[in-house]
């Protein structure tokens, strides 16, 4: 029996909560994009409502980790794991916030017909989701090679975002009445790009957890 069985069990419970939080954030992002594509206001409202659960879970994780640090004075990998859990929880909570922002834009757009650039937003979402799911897997398995691949996908998301912006600007010149939608889609593109960045942040945290050193995966 491990000397610190209770501590280990608390530590891994916090990690389980983090996985749960991550899945909730990825689902929220998916639901918000689904609502956008289908002009589904009810689904968008649900995303906004359910974000409270994500926020509450992040707070619970933080409180639990702080208590563990105070009670157990962890060091080395244990301490890094706890710090990384707090940071990743914050990244995932932020992804939940982007889902809320997209849901709000969806409500503002209402039934207005979409510009064609919405297809690229969908592509960005697919890539960002792949990254987020893969980084959760990598985190559970502590697989840094998987984490490294995430940074490569992030480059594709950044390229797509660049293209979306250029095309939206061009679309704007011929459709002054669509300026509002163009701005909203530009924002949504930004939220996707930021969500993907958070996946990269998490991948960097995983490197720190496993190797105890800081890595910049945007190199």
């Amino acid at each position: 029996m491990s000397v610190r069985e209770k501590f280990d069990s608390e530590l891994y419970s916090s990690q389980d909560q983090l996985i749960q939080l991550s899945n909730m954030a990825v689902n929220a992002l998916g639901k918000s994009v689904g609502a956008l594509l289908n002009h589904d206001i009810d689904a968008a409202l649900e995303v906004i409502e359910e974000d409270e659960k994500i926020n509450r879970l992040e707070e619970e994780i933080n409180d639990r980790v702080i208590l563990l640090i105070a009670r157990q004075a962890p060091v080395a990998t244990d301490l890094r794991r706890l710090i990384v859990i707090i940071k990743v929880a914050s990244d995932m909570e932020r992804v939940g916030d982007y889902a809320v922002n997209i849901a709000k834009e969806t409500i503002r757009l209402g039934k207005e017909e979409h510009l064609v650039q919405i297809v690229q937003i969908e592509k960005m979402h697919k890539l960002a989701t792949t990254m987020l799911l893969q980084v959760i897997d990598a985190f559970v398995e502590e697989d840094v090679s998987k984490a490294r691949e995430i940074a490569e996908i992030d480059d594709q998301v950044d390229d797509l975002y660049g293209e979306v912006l250029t095309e939206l600007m061009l679309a704007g010149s011929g459709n002054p009445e669509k300026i509002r939608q163009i701005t909203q889609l530009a924002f949504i593109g930004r939220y996707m790009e930021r969500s993907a960045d958070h996946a990269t942040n998490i991948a960097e945290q995983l490197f720190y957890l496993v190797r105890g050193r800081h890595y910049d995966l945007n190199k």
Partner: protein
Amino acid sequence: MSTTQAINNRSKTAGLEQESSQATSTSSVYDTKQLNLWYGDNHALKNIDLDIKQNEVTAIIGPSGCGKSTYLKTLNRMVELVPNVKTSGQIMYRGRNIFDKDYSVEELRTRVGMVFQKPNPFPKSIYDNIAYGPRIHGIKNKKILDEIVEKSLRGAAIWDEVKDRLNENAYSISGGQQQRICIARALAIEPDVILMDEPTSALDPISTLKIEELVQELKKDYSIIIVTHNMQQAARISDKTAFFLNGEVIEYDNTDTIFSNPSDKRTEDYISGRFG
């Protein structure tokens, strides 16, 4: 190129990996080379190599019976008081092997003071406790002794608490104060090194913190080697940490590295409380 790409490209050149270990350039006070020690048939220290730097606090950690106190007591050859002790290897103190036949143990112990687990003042006045060492070394002049007593008590951060009761028995003050009297007693002979064997294990948390702060002050003028069972204490006050296990040094590195990213799994398991 998009703004995002431009920023990413810029961050590529700024990206860096940080190394946790840093080399130090201070000179050695003790350099232990292939030290072995036996208590009869019990091989208590095995091939110890440790280079201890001056003006640093070196912590020695490890589970009970791992040889850490034995190693500490070898540094002033106090271990030789135990019957059937045999040693091999070298401990170079300031460039001379302390096991050399013509090395004077008395001289060594004048240079290397020691503070023990339980405060052990002499059953004498506070003043006489501090003046004891200097008197043995032939200092009889009252004025000089007064100066040494004040300087030593100030050095041990206890002068203000006892200056009006120097003639009281050292047993009349608290345990934490007694331990600082013992540190002052060690300082009175103006040592080069102070060995501390779990100096706070019998003290309350406030007295412990006072001793820890004192250790930080003392390292400006002395080199300190401290054996401790308190991991957080080692992490708080030492510059380097040596992890002993079954008579061997498993890992010796900067304390920051030992407590954030140790290289050996046994070190990690010990400091994170998974055995010992």
